């Protein structure tokens, strides 16, 4: 199979996947085959797929393992959530111009930092730029001092833990453990209307395809090569004079912005955002999506995110107590047995098949009186047995 044909095939597959998401599913919905409930559920998965794309960009390509990606997701979701709260305030139980939860917490005036979120545009901008900014600051504080690898991973985990603790507090005026919920409308469209949710799905699918194209452009550009090089040989690149830290900060910030976008699309579709979605465990789950789908492939991130979340929806309804076991098993199994994930599965199975053939062949070859030249053809085998026999 020539490289050009393989590339064409992949492009075709990607275009078909994109068309399925943007045109296919809404069409099925319009024909009445796919219910509104499932379309909305799919919208949620697609927004999470954007989050996984960002993770793949930093982990799969740049080699940065961030265990705090859910913070950025949360920042995006809370930004849009705050706007939606303000848009629906006045229609709540108390009829006050501020969100209901503030009244429970004896806050009777809109806090200053909430005020700009009255404008949707600001909220949307904040959902993209705030996570990017926070990511850049974290990156600036760590990468420039060459804190990377395992140190970076556990530092981001500690940050995720701290942020989760803080968001659970009522003093932050973000709803405490209950988070932000009871959104009524977005841009005047009621969120209980299936039409609005269909629109949101379409926006999410378009955003996902757009993000995917951006990421693919990025990783195929010269910059993408540098990022891959950072993953594979950071030292050498540094000696060659590349500003490694700057590249890392940039890709971390882009991943943060993607996570923020994912959150911004997630909050209106699901209708609630709570601190439980921004802690340590959600952050690690994102890594598992990417690992399961296949890291460093972009498509794998999408497949992993949608697949695992769909599986979760099915399994947590039936066997809630077994879900952590399955997830834990995925952590162990994917990394040890399928390091290339679902996307790499065909190649991996092919390799296993070859090993198996070699194994069987050798077994037969080791039988009486058949030591012959036919074994010479096997050079993919790493078994030292042949050379020893020679």
């Amino acid at each position, binding site marked *: 199979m020539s490289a050009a044909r393989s590339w064409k095939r992949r492009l075709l597959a990607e275009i078909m996947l994109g068309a399925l998401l943007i045109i296919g599913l809404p069409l099925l919905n319009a024909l009445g085959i796919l219910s509104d409930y499932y379309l909305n559920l799919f919208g949620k998965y697609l927004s999470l797929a954007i989050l996984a794309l960002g993770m793949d960009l930093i982990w799969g390509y740049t*080699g940065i*393992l961030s265990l705090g990606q859910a913070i950025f997701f949360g920042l995006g979701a809370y930004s849009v959530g705050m706007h939606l709260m303000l848009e629906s305030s006045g229609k709540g139980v108390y009829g006050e111009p501020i969100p209901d939860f503030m009244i429970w917490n004896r806050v009777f005036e809109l806090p200053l930092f909430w005020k700009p979120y009255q404008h949707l545009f600001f909220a949307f901008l904040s959902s993209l730029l705030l996570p990017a900014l926070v990511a850049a600051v974290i990156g600036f*504080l*760590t990468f420039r*001092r*060459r*804190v*990377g*690898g*395992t*140190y*970076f*991973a*556990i*530092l981001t*985990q*500690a*940050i995720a*833990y*701290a942020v989760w*603790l*803080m968001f*659970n*507090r009522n*003093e932050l005026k973000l709803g405490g453990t209950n988070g932000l919920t009871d959104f009524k409308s977005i841009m005047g469209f009621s969120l209980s209307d299936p039409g609005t949710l269909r629109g949101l799905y379409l926006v999410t699918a378009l955003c996902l395809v757009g993000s995917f194209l951006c990421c693919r452009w990025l990783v195929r550009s010269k910059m993408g090569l540098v990022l891959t090089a950072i993953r594979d040989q950071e*030292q050498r690149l540094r000696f060659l004079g590349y500003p490694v830290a700057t590249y890392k900060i940039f890709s971390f910030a882009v991943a943060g912005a993607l996570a923020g976008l994912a959150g911004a699309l997630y909050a209106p579709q699901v209708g609630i955002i709570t601190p439980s979605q921004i802690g*340590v465990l959600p952050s*690690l789950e994102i*890594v*598992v999506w990417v*690992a399961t789908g296949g890291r460093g492939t972009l498509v794998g991130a999408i497949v992993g995110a949608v697949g695992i979340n769909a599986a979760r929806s099915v399994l947590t309804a039936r066997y809630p*107590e077994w879900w*952590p*076991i399955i*997830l*834990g*098993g*995925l*952590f*162990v199994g994917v*990394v*040890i047995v399928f*390091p290339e994930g679902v996307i790499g599965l065909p190649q991996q199975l092919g390799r296993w098949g070859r090993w198996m053939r070699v194994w069987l062949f050798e077994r037969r070859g080791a039988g009486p009186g058949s030591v012959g030249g036919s074994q010479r053809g096997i050079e993919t085998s790493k078994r030292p047995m042949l050379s020893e026999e020679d």
Partner: protein
Amino acid sequence: MVRRIYVLLLCWLAIGASFAGRAAADSLEDSARALAIPETQRETLAHIRDLGDPAWKDALQALKEGALYSWKGQLLILDESGTFKDLGGNPLLDASGQPLMPEADLEQVPLEEANISLVQRALDVIALFDPNPKTRQAAIMKLANLADASVMGLLVRALERERNPVVQPMLVEAVARLRLSDPDPLLRAQAVKFFSETRSEAALVPLKALLEREEEAALKRAITQVIGEIERYLLFRNAVGYVFNGLSLASILLIMSLGLAITFGLMGIINMAHGEMLMLGSYTAYVIQEFFSSHLPAQQDYFFFVALPLSLLVVGGVGLVLERGLLRFLYARPLESLLVTWGIGMLLQQGVRLYFGDQTSVNAPTWFRGGWEIMAGLIFPYSRLFIIALSLLCLGVVYLLLYRSDTGLKIRAVMQNRDIAGCMGVSTPRIDAFTFALGTALAGLAGCALSLVGTVDPEVGKTYIVDSFMVVVLGGVGKVLGTILASLGIGVANKLLEPSISGTAAAVYAKVGILLLVIFFLQLRPTGLFPARERSTEAVGR
């Protein structure tokens, strides 16, 4: 033991004294009659209160509960079993010796609304002379807090009789607190002087109140001075308390992080399931305790001596299996090993939850209950002292093992340069496995020790794991001294930050503050307190 006999003796003395009080039975009859008449009830109650006679306890209790009846000029108590007794506690019998149930002329003694508090006060006063020292303590506390000058005389009388070394100082203090509001300025001055010596926390509020209304200038100055003294003392005492709490946290962090830091230094991997190893240690203690309580209930207290070494062995074994079974395939890929260990942690956590349920607890052996009162009002619990001692012991053992033994020499050699060590004949896989098992075993030990002070639940590891990661980041790779200093720093800083922030969110913001400090520190020293001196450019972030 000697102390117990002493206390017992005192109790007997107290009981003897109360029997002596019963001699005045005729006055009891008179008072009883007066008690039944609403007009004289208040007066009689005050009289009974001033007597402080335990013989009145049952009658007053019955009066309070509406179970006191008058019958033919005699007071009767209706007890819980439904029989009537006279005030001496003898059941009411008819001529043939059968329980008598009076029907006619039986009248409930009414308790006037205004007298309820008086009855309560009288009961409290009687409790002052109770044979049980615990009851006496409670009564003293209550009466001292009420600041009711009318019980003054009784307190003084109780003081004369009190011989219990725990109760007596409490009584002295209670008397002094009441004297603070005595009309006699001389007595007031005496009480103020008394508090300048004891520096009791409880005196702070009454002293401040006295300062408001005191008119004598000299006394006022003395009070201000005493208040200052007490406040300084409290500040000092609280600081000692916080530091002790910090040390206690630091010692747990130390046992946990020692294992983490050594494995990190040796193999470059962070064991995310380390918290779950701690949890397994706690559950080992729990299982052993259950075994003892069902099979050897007489030796219940000794379960801990079995649990401690067993948790070390069990969790060490789990670590060994993990290392040999999974982690050794991942040494070249530290980030992947992070994910795998996290997954293992999840599996263990949920497995334990499914098997044991959500929350259990271990009953600490009886000799760990209580504590050592190091200064007035500050008690160091024995269990926490034990944990600190245990962590010091672990530290000593780890130090000897690393720096004074053959194995330690090999471990350090592999840590410095794996390939060369291998070339010199060190079996690096065996060293890896041993070190990993040692690290997890230490976590198991920490878990077993922790079960003394906290609950045992599947998420117990989560509480400490982030902090111990920070210890590793701060302390540097595989450095014992760095780990000690970092766990001390983080443990003590955590507990010192908490009160300075105050409020319910203190623990949260203390954690955030610590994290900010660690990040700031990494700006100055990205490789920890004691960076490994090597020629590699990849000291961090392997």
